[in-house]
Every structure is written in structure tokens, then in C-alpha cells.
């Protein structure tokens, strides 16, 4: 569509770990491939190593000995960030306060020695692309948070980087603006076709933006998968609980059925098990009449949240179950209800170590 978009580079991270000078292990050796044009999200709570991983890819940190970073098959491990041709958007935006908006966007082009007229043309293109027309001559302290975010993005993309690195770019904004910019950012990344690596602790951001999500925990990769895989098929209890809401049950199994206080629940793949840890998403539990149901319990509380209502039902499982029910059904606290759960909706998790 424009001259701004690049093809993006493929990224190969092999065995990259990071131990800081004081001996703390920030990142266990990790291996990861990122395809050309893919948007990969590094997701996890603070201190999980996601920013360290991003900084290793950027060239702001060196991996421990044995780790390599390849862009399109070329070894970049020893190159500093200024020679990697990566665009970077920082949480603080890090816009240069001594330059105007246009000068900020053009800075990387100026460093590359691009002639003035070409620079101006590229800046005009980016200003249009990121919707900041009219702000070119403003000083940075005259911009709102959302405008700063767009300028930071325009500046990072202006140099036509092979890879765009985004470190919590929306975290500093208020909730409504964050949601709107998330949509814009998504469209922009798709339009540019650039390889993007996006760090966030916000799962909604990760779900919307990521082609694939890398969930991280305590310096290690907990799971890599598409948003759907991460949500519906978490491989461990941490991922199940970190992403969305989850009922996690530890219970006895007989003949491939969970034995619960409120009845029995058939599940897949548990024929040879005697006990299991399972996850059930709140929206996969249906509410029926108590008489005919295999599994039943008593409603503890009902919270109406508009598009749905959240029920807490006790007596069915070893601990109260959280259920997202349609906002149309009638439910009152104290009422007995039947629960229908499809065998597919029950996800077996590996026993917790």
C-alpha cells in the first residue's frame, strides 16, 4: 500500500538466557522462532522475563554465552542495537523533547543521511498513516498521551525496520483510549506486514494483537500458541489461571468420569487415571433444571454485569464453581440448579509439580 511497509525479517532465537551481574537469572535459555510478518506477543506478569527477552532481540542486552539471535538467518548476536535496523516503541515513548514531532519522526532518516526532500515526503506519509496530521510542528510537551504514542510509532516505523519491537506501548494510557489504540495498532501492523514483537502484561491486548502468544513465567516460557490454543488448551495450571477466568478442580476419577460432590462428569482422555486436575471455563458451563441433571448445586450468588451474569454455584464441585450464564435466564441465590458441561469443555491439566 505504501512505501513504508517492509517485508519484515524472520527472527530466530536460540538458547538465549540472561543472568544479571548480581547473579539473578532473568531468563532461562529459551529458543523461539518468529516468522516473517508475524506478530508475536510476549505475555506475563511483571518480572517474568518478557522485557529481558525483548531487549535481547533488540540488542540492548547481550544473551549469556551460548545464546544466538538471528535475523533472516544472519547472526546478529554481537551487533549493537544501532546496527540491527529494528524499530522500537517504549513504554515511556522516549520522544526527544528538544525536537518537534516531525523532527522526531525524521531522526532515524537524518542519521541515515537521507536527503531533506525525501525525508519530508516520508514524514508526511507517516503522519497520514498514524493520524497525526496538523501536529508536525508541535513540541512533544504539547501532545496528549495518545498523540505521543502515535508519534513514537511513526518514528519507529519511519526507518523501515525489519522488526518492530513494542515494549508495553499502551500501558501508560487510560482504559478507553487503550482499547481504541489497540484496534488502530492492530490494523497498522497488518497493513505494514512487518514482523512485530509485542510485550504486554494485558491479556486482552495479547489476544487481539497476537498471531501467536508466548506466555512467560519466572524467566521461562510457560506456553507458546495461538490465542485460541492458549485460551482453550492451556498446557498447565499457570497459563489456565493467568489467561481469562478458570475453574480449576482437583478430583478423583472413576471409569473416565470425574467424581464430584454434586454428581459425575464424563471427560475425555481420563480412562486410565485415578485422579486429575482439570480446567473448566466459566462460559462453557450451562445452567439447566436440577431434576434431570447429572451434576447439580446451589446458587451462592448472582452478579449481573450487563452482557452476562456471573453465578457462583457451590455443592457441585469440591470448591464453588464460577459460571458465566446468559443475561436472559432467571437465577436466584439459594436456588438449586443443574449444570451441563460438555466433555470437550473439560481440559485436563498435568498434575502440579
Amino acid at each position, binding site marked *: 500500500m505504501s512505501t513504508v511497509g517492509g517485508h519484515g525479517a524472520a527472527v530466530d532465537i536460540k538458547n538465549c538466557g540472561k543472568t544479571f551481574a548480581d547473579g539473578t537469572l532473568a531468563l532461562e535459555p529459551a529458543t523461539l522462532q518468529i516468522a516473517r510478518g508475524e506478530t508475536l506477543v510476549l505475555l506475563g506478569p511483571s518480572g517474568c522475563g518478557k522485557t529481558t527477552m525483548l531487549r535481547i532481540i*533488540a540488542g*540492548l542486552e547481550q544473551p549469556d554465552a551460548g545464546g544466538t539471535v538471528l535475523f533472516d538467518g544472519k547472526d546478529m548476536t554481537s551487533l*549493537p*542495537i*544501532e*546496527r540491527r*535496523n*529494528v*524499530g*522500537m516503541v*517504549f*513504554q*515511556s*515513548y*522516549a*520522544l*526527544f*523533547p*528538544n*525536537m518537534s514531532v516531525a523532527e522526531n519522526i525524521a*531522526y*532515524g532518516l537524518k*542519521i*541515515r543521511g537521507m536527503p531533506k526532500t525525501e525525508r519530508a515526503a516520508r514524514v508526511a506519509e507517516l503522519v497520514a498513516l498514524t493520524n497525526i496530521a496538523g501536529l508536525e510542528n508541535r*513540541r*512533544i*510537551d504539547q501532545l496528549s498521551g495518545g498523540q505521543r504514542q502515535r508519534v513514537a510509532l511513526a*518514528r*519507529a516505523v519511519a*526507518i523501515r525496520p525489519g522488526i518492530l*519491537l513494542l515494549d508495553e506501548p499502551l500501558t501508560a494510557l487510560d482504559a478507553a483510549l487503550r482499547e481504541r489504540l489497540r484496534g488502530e495498532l492492530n490494523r497498522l501492523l497488518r497493513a505494514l506486514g512487518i514482523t512485530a514483537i509485542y510485550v504486554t502484561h494485558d491479556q486482552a491486548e495479547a489476544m487481539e494483537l497476537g498471531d501467536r502468544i508466548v506466555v512467560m513465567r519466572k524467566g521461562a516460557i510457560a506456553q507458546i500458541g495461538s490465542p485460541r490454543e492458549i485460551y482453550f488448551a492451556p498446557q498447565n495450571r499457570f497459563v489456565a489461571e493467568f489467561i481469562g477466568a478458570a475453574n480449576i478442580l482437583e478430583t478423583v476419577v472413576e471409569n473416565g468420569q470425574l467424581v464430584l460432590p454434586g454428581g459425575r462428569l464424563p471427560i475425555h482422555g481420563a480412562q486410565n487415571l485415578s485422579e486429575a486436575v482439570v480446567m473448566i471455563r466459566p462460559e462453557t458451563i450451562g445452567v439447566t433444571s436440577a431434576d434431570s441433571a447429572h451434576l447439580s448445586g446451589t446458587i451462592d450468588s448472582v452478579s449481573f454485569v450487563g452482557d452476562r451474569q456471573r453465578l457462583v454455584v457451590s455443592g457441585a464441585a469440591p470448591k464453588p464453581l464460577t459460571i458465566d450464564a446468559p443475561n436472559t435466564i432467571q437465577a436466584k441465590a439459594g436456588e438449586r440448579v443443574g449444570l451441563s458441561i460438555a466433555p470437550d469443555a473439560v481440559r485436563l491439566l498435568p498434575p502440579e509439580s
Partner: protein
Amino acid sequence: MSHRSFVGLCLLPLAVVTAAFFLLPMARLIATGAEGPQGLAGYLAILVEPRYRATLINTVLLATATTLVTLIVATIVGMFLQRHRFPGRSILIAMLTFPLAFPGVVVGFMIILLAGRQGVIGDLSSHLTGQKLVFAYSIYGLFLGYLYFSIPRVILTIMAAVQKLDPGLEEAARSLGAGPWAVQRDVVLPALAPAFVASGAIAFATAMGAFGTAFTLATNIDVLPMLIYTEFTLAANFATSAALSVGLGVITWFILALARSFSGSAVAAAG
């Protein structure tokens, strides 16, 4: 008592002190400056009279050189100290700020011990070349002395400014392809500009007006404070020394205002 008159009463001591110790002496000084044989024209003597003008230029050059060299040395040292952690760092910072505790006389004494007739540098140079290098009693000795007590003040200001600098700014510039020199030129130094102006102003004003060090080193160094001293105590030329005093104040203030307005845009942008 109304609220207004209460506040007015509270401000009364300030008004009395300001009038007694600032406004009245200043008025008297300005009046005295015009009481010489030339009248008001006495004020122009600092610019017109060749000897005075030469001394003024000397003083401004000395203060400018002191300020520039102080800023260069203190910026490098301050940035290094703020960015690196090593054993003995806090002791080193404490030692660097030690000169703040000395009056000008002591600084002058130390310069004589270093570069005077019995000084370390003289001994060394006579051993090495047979020639005794002595510069304590000249404007170079004074320059060294002013550096000695300007650097600590400026280092502290620069360190505070470097600490407030967003490390993301440098990383962003690097990600856009800027090498180490370009990062300093385009990002770090502009961001430190307000600190340069603030701390440079103090260094400049001190070097323009300091007296103790100059007096300790020699009575014939050509700087304005010494000139005022000799006109006042030796020649008992009240009118001229008053006119020179006012001139020194006005010129120092004017140069500082000029520096501030030149860096004004940078200061506002970095704020």
C-alpha cells in the same frame, strides 16, 4: 485584624531587612559612583578607560574559560559517576565535593603549594627539564583555583540532571541508528542544557567576583575584584571603586541573562 493586614505585618521584617541591607546600600553605592570628578560619566570609565577595559575583558575571558572547562570536566565526571557503580564510589564523590568546604584563601594557598615557587610542579619540572615552572601568581594560577572550586558544584548539579534522564531516550536514539557521538550530541547534551545553564551561571558569577583566591595569589592580577580593591583601599578612590562595583554587577548579570535567553528554547523544550 483583617487577614490582609496580618499578612502585611508578617512581611514587615522582610521589608525592613531588604531596605536596610540591600536597597539602601545599593542606592548609596550607585550615588557614590556618580560623585567622582567626571560625575555620571564615571560609570562609562569601566568601558572607556583603557586600563579598566582591559581588566574587564580579562575578567570576562577568565570567567568564561573557567565556566567552559568546568562544564566539560564536570559533565564527563558527573555522567560517569551517575552511570557506574564501583567500590569506593561514594567516598570519591565525597572527596570531589570537599573543595566546597574551603574559603578562597585556602584555595589560593593550595594553588601556591602546587604551582608556586616551592610548589610540586616547579620541583618536578626543574628535575625533568632544569627549568622551574611557576604559574601560581598569575591569571593561570587563578584559573586553576576557580576550576578547583567550581567543578564540585557543577558535578553535583549534572549528576542530579543525569539521574533524571530517561534511559529510554538514549536507547530510542540508538534504535534509530545513532552511534555514541550522535546520541550525546542529539539527545543527552540537549536534555542536560538546563543543568548547564544553571550550574554554569554559578561558576561564571563566582569566577567574575571571587576575591579571596586572587588576593592570596598576588595583588597585581588583572581582574575586576582586585582592581576595585586597589582603587578603594590603596587609592581611596571611592567614586571609581563604586562605579566599577556597579559595573561588575551589571555586566555579570547581563551576560547571565544573555546565556539564559540563548538557551531559552532548549530549556523550555527539555523541561
